[in-house]
């Protein structure tokens, strides 16, 4: 097992035994189950577009709570000093925490596969938007987790980490609104920074490389800055 594997095992154990993770998972599935049942009952349409947007909102709100502990807790308890004085590159520490948080969110998303299964059993859903929606949720999770980890790496206060990442997510969410006020070419920049703008395209069943590139680029950038923040001592 590589160093990344050793660290990932520890992080997965911490993530999947944390009461915070189970609380978040329970809230996510409870709200989604309620929304799905209600939507299906009223519209009677085999479509998950509304559900994916609900998941988007919940992920934006819940991910900061999930990632706020990543480094802030290790910094507070000084265990980060143990990790950073071991012969382990910072990128492995960051990578393990990122993959563990992503695994937790993916497990939550996997549990929601019950919804398309229900649609398939009782109707004829269009699968392209469903595949696109799940791909969008995974890419969105990558971005949210990486930004959440970045803010956690900059402070030892978990509340500050969570509040800062939530602030960043909301600013990105509503970035396209600022485009109305900004002059060209800044308006294009704001539109392209929009979190929801790139998400909606996927949920409609269209797959553009630029949308995937947005999530991948911002995720990698955040992970890079997190690694630099850890290395800068």
């Amino acid at each position, binding site marked *: *097992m590589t*160093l990344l594997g050793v660290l990932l095992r520890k992080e997965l154990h911490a993530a999947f035994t944390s009461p915070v993770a189970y609380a978040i998972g329970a809230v996510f599935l409870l709200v989604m189950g309620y929304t799905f049942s209600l939507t299906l009952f009223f519209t009677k349409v085999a479509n998950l577009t509304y559900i994916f947007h609900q998941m988007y909102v919940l992920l934006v709100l819940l991910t900061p709570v999930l990632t706020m502990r990543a480094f802030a807790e290790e910094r507070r*308890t000084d265990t980060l*000093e143990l990790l950073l*004085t*071991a012969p382990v590159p910072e990128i492995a520490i960051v990578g393990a925490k990122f993959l563990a948080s992503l695994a937790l969110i993916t497990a939550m998303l996997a549990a929601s596969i019950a919804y398309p299964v229900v649609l398939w059993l009782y109707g004829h859903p269009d699968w392209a938007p469903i595949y696109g929606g799940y791909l969008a949720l995974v890419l969105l999770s990558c971005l949210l987790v990486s930004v959440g980890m970045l803010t956690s790496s900059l402070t030892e206060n978990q509340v500050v980490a969570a509040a800062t990442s939530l602030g960043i997510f909301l600013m990105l969410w509503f970035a396209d609104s600022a485009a109305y006020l900004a002059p060209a070419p800044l308006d294009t920049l704001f539109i392209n920074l929009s979190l929801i703008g790139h998400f909606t395209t996927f949920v409609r069943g269209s797959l553009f490389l630029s949308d995937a590139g947005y999530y991948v680029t911002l995720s990698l950038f955040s992970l890079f800055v997190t690694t630099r923040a850890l290395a800068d*001592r």
Partner: protein
Amino acid sequence: MSDRSPVIVARRVTKLYGGVPAVRDVTLEVEQGEILGLLGPNGSGKTTLLRMVTGYLSPSAGSLTVAGHDTVREPMAARRRIGYVPESVPLYSHMRVREFLSFMARLRGVPREAVAKAVARASERVDVADVLATPIRALSRGYRQRVAIAQALVHNPDVVILDEPTNGLDPRQIIETRRLLRDLAGEHTVLISSHILGEVEKIARRVAILLRGELLAVRSVADTPDLEALFLSLT
């Protein structure tokens, strides 16, 4: 000085925090198998110096080598030779002792097939073999300290660094820790810090006195009968 080769070499090491020196122009050598005590009041730069040796902090100026490896240019090679116990004794409370020691052994480069043996050896060395199955959160302060020392020894490093190792221990635990540290000498090079003169005097072979980030003197404990007077005259 003996003819033993230095394992830790600090050359004109300085650490600045926002332009303010926490450690200033320190030159120091620690020989193979010796115990060197860093002595100084709180805020004298002991922890900063130790953290630079471990590679946790980078020097603003000067150079540091551990077993011939520069801590900035070859950080991984240097860290493989070090076992470190920070002052706050950080441990993963949700783990059991065996799990924690195995985790630290793997991180420090012990091959998977040798981990069980390494954990058994380190736990016997510091007398925690009877609590290997206990969750760390359930351990007393004394046991936590010993587990922290065990994780520093689990990969059999050349250098063991302990920051204020007897802080918060009861008198019996202090005596046991002193004995343990003295036993490490010869097999490992030990660098400890303390703000208690009597503590360093009882454990170390040589003492380095720091004040406001500056190294004031390095003396052999055996050759300095009145260390207290020397300390008072320097500080």
